[in-house]
């Protein structure tokens, strides 16, 4: 049977001691809600990311990268699947309700999936910059996450995302050493994706952020963001590209790179489903869900399922 806590103070002391909460524990409602919302957004983002990846299977150049995109699509959809299961187990929404909310534009997913990937250069920028930002955020959660079922799933997700990162790095180096046309294309993609990738970390964490207080994530947004700039700005510059941030400062003595002022309006627009590609993306995801209904019905009605296994 699950554990109970007499008060929020007692529960928070348990978390501060490094305690792990399991699904059958009588956790405080606010904690349950915060963890659930976090996992739901992660699940939605995996699904929306997987659908974008899928669109690029026929367009990806070369068999090797095509195979990788094919496998990455399965990875992302599979991650979404695992996360929806963990989220549904928390008892606040069923998987179907979460999907219906997503397709109706009522629930959130990461800002980067509110933009359109128009060229292969965009896909390379996503698999290099955006995946790195997402991985850094996930690692910060995994390191010390107080909700056990989520932390255990994250361990596997992170191992696979690390593999995607290596593919992204390889693609970026190929394009960086490619023709003039490829380099111009990638610079354009960098101009389009640098800021959304950086904004993925979110604004500076508030002092009273419950995600930090309840050890759901273990690092502040601004720390993760700064580390990402520190890694990618010099790397891209060394390949001959320009970072589209006129306020970027390099302290030569300390060898630190600091981003200029950040305009958070684009992030706010995406969270309100008003991003440049939000409507099309959500519409496509909803259409995909409707188009595949016959598959779910066939699965639900398969003889061994109809006998009582969960559908």
């Amino acid at each position, binding site marked *: 049977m699950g554990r109970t806590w007499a008060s929020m103070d007692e529960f928070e002391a348990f978390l501060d001691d490094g305690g792990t909460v399991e*699904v059958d524990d009588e956790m405080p409602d606010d904690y349950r809600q915060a963890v659930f919302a976090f996992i739901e957004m992660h699940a939605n983002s995996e699904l929306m990311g997987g659908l974008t990846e899928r669109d690029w299977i026929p367009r990806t150049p070369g068999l090797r990268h095509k195979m990788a995109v094919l*496998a990455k699509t399965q990875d*992302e959809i599979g991650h979404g*699947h695992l996360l929806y299961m*963990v989220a549904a187990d928390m008892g606040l929404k069923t998987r179907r309700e979460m999907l219906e909310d997503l397709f109706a534009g009522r629930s959130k997913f990461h800002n980067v999936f509110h933009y359109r990937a128009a060229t292969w250069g965009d896909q390379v920028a996503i698999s290099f910059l955006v995946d790195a930002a997402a991985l850094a955020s996930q690692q910060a959660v995994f390191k010390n996450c107080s909700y056990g079922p989520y932390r255990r799933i994250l361990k596997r997700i992170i191992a696979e995302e690390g593999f995607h990162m290596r593919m992204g790095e390889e693609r970026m180096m190929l394009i960086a050493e490619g023709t003039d046309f490829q380099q111009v294309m990638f610079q354009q993609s960098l101009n389009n994706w640098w800021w959304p990738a950086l904004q993925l970390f979110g604004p500076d964490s508030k002092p009273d952020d419950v995600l930090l207080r309840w050890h759901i994530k273990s690092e502040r947004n601004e720390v993760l963001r700064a580390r990402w700039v520190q890694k990618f700005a010099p790397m891209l510059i060394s390949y001959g590209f320009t970072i589209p941030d006129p306020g970027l400062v390099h302290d030569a003595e300390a060898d630190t790179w600091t981003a200029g002022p950040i305009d958070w309006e684009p992030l706010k627009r995406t969270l309100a489903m008003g991003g440049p590609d939000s409507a099309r993306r959500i519409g496509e995801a909803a259409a995909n869900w409707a188009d595949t209904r016959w598959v779910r019905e066939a699965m639900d009605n398969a003889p061994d399922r109809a006998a009582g*296994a969960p559908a």
Partner: protein
Amino acid sequence: MTSIPTVEAVRAAVATVDDPEYPGISIVDLGLLESVEVRPDGDVVVGLVPTFSGCPALAMIAEDVHAAVAAVGGVTGPRVDIRWLSGPVWTVERLTGTARRTMAEEFTVAVRIGAGPVPCPRCGGDTAEESMFGPSRCRAVHVCHSCTEVVEVMRA
């Protein structure tokens, strides 16, 4: 002057390579290493079997094995040929006990061997299949009846 590497040294080098999707699990424990041949001139041929022929990590694994083996055998290093073999076919029986333990303990991943229910790596209870495929073609998704854990199950 170069000395000819021993088969054991090459095997040990291959064993330092982890699976890209399972950090901490050696590809030798995963059963990918089939053969090592050291020719009289010092050239090395490593034969590997893929878990699935469409696995997207094959090129990356081959690169990692190449780098590890090329570092064996002194200053100039042997010439190394990494081959993906079309047979024997990889099965879950090729996983060592170490690989199975690490998967269960570190990644909550079970391995399906033979018929019957797959036990939950967390509590030992029976699991039921939720989906034939998970994030990869070599893994299914199960749910534990006892502790409700979401479990991935590796299968041939």
